[in-house]
């Protein structure tokens, strides 16, 4: 029976199933995804915090569940997690507010 909600926590476990309807693209995505989160110039720990911040700005409940747990597994503290979320929120609000300049430009151009 179909879920009555748009988001169901149980669906996160089924993420891998997207390969069923498009094997090649799905597999390529998961391979890429796995590679992105490996240790590199950035540590896997840093990448986890970035992912957590982006999960919030994207407002993806699956990603928030996944990267909250991932952070705990890596020993990341609550304080570090919340600071990362604030970084995302600051950029998100900054991104809104910086458009205020566009508004000002427009108003200044139109007004006598």
């Amino acid at each position: 029976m179909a879920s009555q909600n748009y988001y169901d926590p149980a669906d996160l476990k089924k993420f891998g199933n997207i390969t069923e309807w498009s094997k090649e693209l799905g597999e390529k995505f998961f391979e890429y995804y796995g590679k992105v989160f490996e240790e590199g110039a950035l540590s896997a720990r840093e990448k986890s915090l970035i992912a957590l911040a982006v999960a919030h700005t994207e407002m993806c409940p699956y990603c928030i569940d996944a990267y909250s747990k991932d952070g705990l597994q890596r020993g990341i503290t609550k304080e570090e997690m919340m600071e990362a979320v604030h970084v995302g929120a600051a950029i998100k609000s900054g991104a809104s507010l910086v458009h205020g300049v566009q508004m000002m430009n427009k108003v200044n151009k139109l007004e006598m």
Partner: protein
Amino acid sequence: MLKEKKKKQQSLHKRHSDLAIANKQLEKLSNSIFANGELPTFSQKIKETDQFPLRPKKLEILQINVGYMCNQVCEHCHVDAGPDRKEIMTRETMEQCLEVIRNTGAHTLDLTGGAPEMNPDFRWFVDEASKAGIKDFIVRSNLTIIRANKKYYDLPAFFKNHNVHVVSSMPHWTRGKTDKQRGEGVFDQSIKALKELNAVGYGMPDSDLRLDLVYNPSGAFLPGDQASMEKDFKKALLEDFGIHFHNLFAITNLPISRFLDYLIASENYEDYMYSLVDAYNPAAVANVMCRNTISVSWDGYLYDCDFNQMLELKVASKIQHISEYNEVILNDRKIIISQHCYGCTAGAGSSCQGATAT
């Protein structure tokens, strides 16, 4: 609230909780998601890679649990240890263990509890056992015991005199996470104890006095990569407190006893079992500790591991007690498994010596 706090200071046994009964735990681990086929049982899983039945390899570790009494009541404890547990190994059983220690082919002797130091014959036993010339002699110390009472203050020196390898629990390098899992004030006392161990040479770079730490996740999640965690622990403990240690063992919490109780009460049980099954690593099965370990309980009975001991699953052998110990006969046994075994095969694997498949 007060009632809740008091409850947390008592073992499941003292609280007469259903989960203090081994069979109730085993029932829980075989019902619901495993009975309805949602998740495969552990035996089904290892059959996929032809690893059933699980059999011992060469015996390497003799792990002796000298009693369930402990000065702490940690929320995740698989032993259900605490001050109210009275199961303590007698000197008579210790003498039977010594006979085995003198003749075993195992290279590691691993004393655990509870807080092993609380056994009144602990020092005598360590003294005698250290004469047997076992290569690696481990005592699992919870650290706070060293600070719990004047009579334990000299433990670091005692360990040093017997060249004991100290393995201690430390769930996090921050106070909040540690105290939440292990009890109020545990972090500060653990830090003091670690400093005292460092002071006599334990854990110092290039020191032969081995001091390793055990990390268990403080909640319903799996441990991260052991090497990265070790790096983070070392950096934080050195910068914040000037503390040194050698290795970090990342250990997965197995869904039994108090951790099982916590999982059920916090409604994390099913998700946790899913996480364990998802993270199943067939390569870790080859090195699970039950394949190279014998676990001895306070009353001398023999088990495949300390977890099976708590589930009262004695070895499937005609030899079941230390008094009739025979390594050859014991090694020809099938290891008893249930769904808790997924805890030792998740990710990089988990054992009392940390990851097994790195």
